């Protein structure tokens, strides 16, 4: 009885025998997480409207397993920050991030969330990575829905390949610590 290597569509590599498949649990969990993201849309301005278009029928984010938007941070995996974050909003964003349960990921959608964009002014936070760690940046002002979808696909790749113990590692704790999140 020889073992065959097989690959499910979108799934991890597996040694498949009669009635069983053999792989790492990390990869199975990664696959499950990546295809059932619950995003929290933190939409503040223009990019939020493009996100609405991404959610609506033409682009349909639901095709990628992110059908269920979680408006409560407690049940969300993915924080999607879309739009300008003013200095007044910074603490609110940080609070939303700390309320989310691990594991959690962050996408900064659009130029404003990534770097402040064209609003290099006294009232705008120059990129959300000043207050929270960010995993994927989506460029554009605003990014078209295709770009937002691409950002989601990038996040899915990250999620699939994340080691199970990453969130307990010293590096991760140091990262959070550098943002004064404990």
């Amino acid at each position, binding site marked *: 009885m020889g073992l065959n290597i097989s690959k499910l569509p979108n799934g991890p590599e597996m040694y498949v025998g009669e009635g069983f498949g053999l792989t790492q649990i990390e990869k199975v969990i990664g696959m499950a997480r990546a295809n059932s993201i619950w995003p929290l849309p933190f939409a503040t301005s223009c990019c939020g409207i493009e996100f609405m278009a991404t959610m609506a029928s033409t682009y349909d984010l639901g095709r990628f397993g992110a059908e269920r938007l979680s408006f409560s941070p407690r049940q969300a995996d993915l924080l999607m920050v879309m739009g300008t974050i003013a*200095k*007044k909003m910074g603490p609110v964003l940080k609070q939303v991030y700390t309320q989310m349960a691990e594991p959690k990921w962050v996408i900064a959608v659009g130029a404003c969330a990534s770097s402040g964009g064209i609003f*290099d*002014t*006294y*009232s705008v936070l*120059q990129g959300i990575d000043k207050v929270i760690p960010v995993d994927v940046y989506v460029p554009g002002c605003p990014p078209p829905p295709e770009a937002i979808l691409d950002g989601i696909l990038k996040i899915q790749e990250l999620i699939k390949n994340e080691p199970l113990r990453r969130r307990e590692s010293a590096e991760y704790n140091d990262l959070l610590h550098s943002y004064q999140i404990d």
Partner: protein
Amino acid sequence: MAEVNNQMLGESISAQFGNQVLSVEETYGTLDIVVEKSIIIPLIKWLKTHDKFQVNFLTSLCGVHFPEQNDRELSVVYHLHSFINNIRFRIHVFLPASQLEIPTLTTLFAGANWMERETFEFYGIKFIGHPDLRIILNVEDMDYHPLLKQYPLVDATRTDKDDKYFGR
């Protein structure tokens, strides 16, 4: 009622308020009336209740800063509109930087509330009698008035951008 026009409006205001109306001129088809601070509220009230002019709409209210004009550093501009006569005009009041106080318009137009708060925030002009004169847009502990010309657009306290790459 097409009989109300810019010229007639300007003349009536000058006749009613005499030398407290500092200047009346027309630019780009709109009347610009500069008046003394003391008559701003009586003037707008008179215009609002006047049976012919019926200026019933406050389009906008904002401040402008002219740092080089001595004793007339700041101005408050009222955009008014009479729907009945379809005539728009502006009233300007100049204030010295040493005494940035002007009576509030909230007694006549409820909508002036936030416009005055915004003007207070941007220029530091105090509207006497305003029910709730607080900073509206920025963080509550903002300690300067950002639209005054002496303050830069970019936050002075920031450290993340190296000036030499931006030609500053």
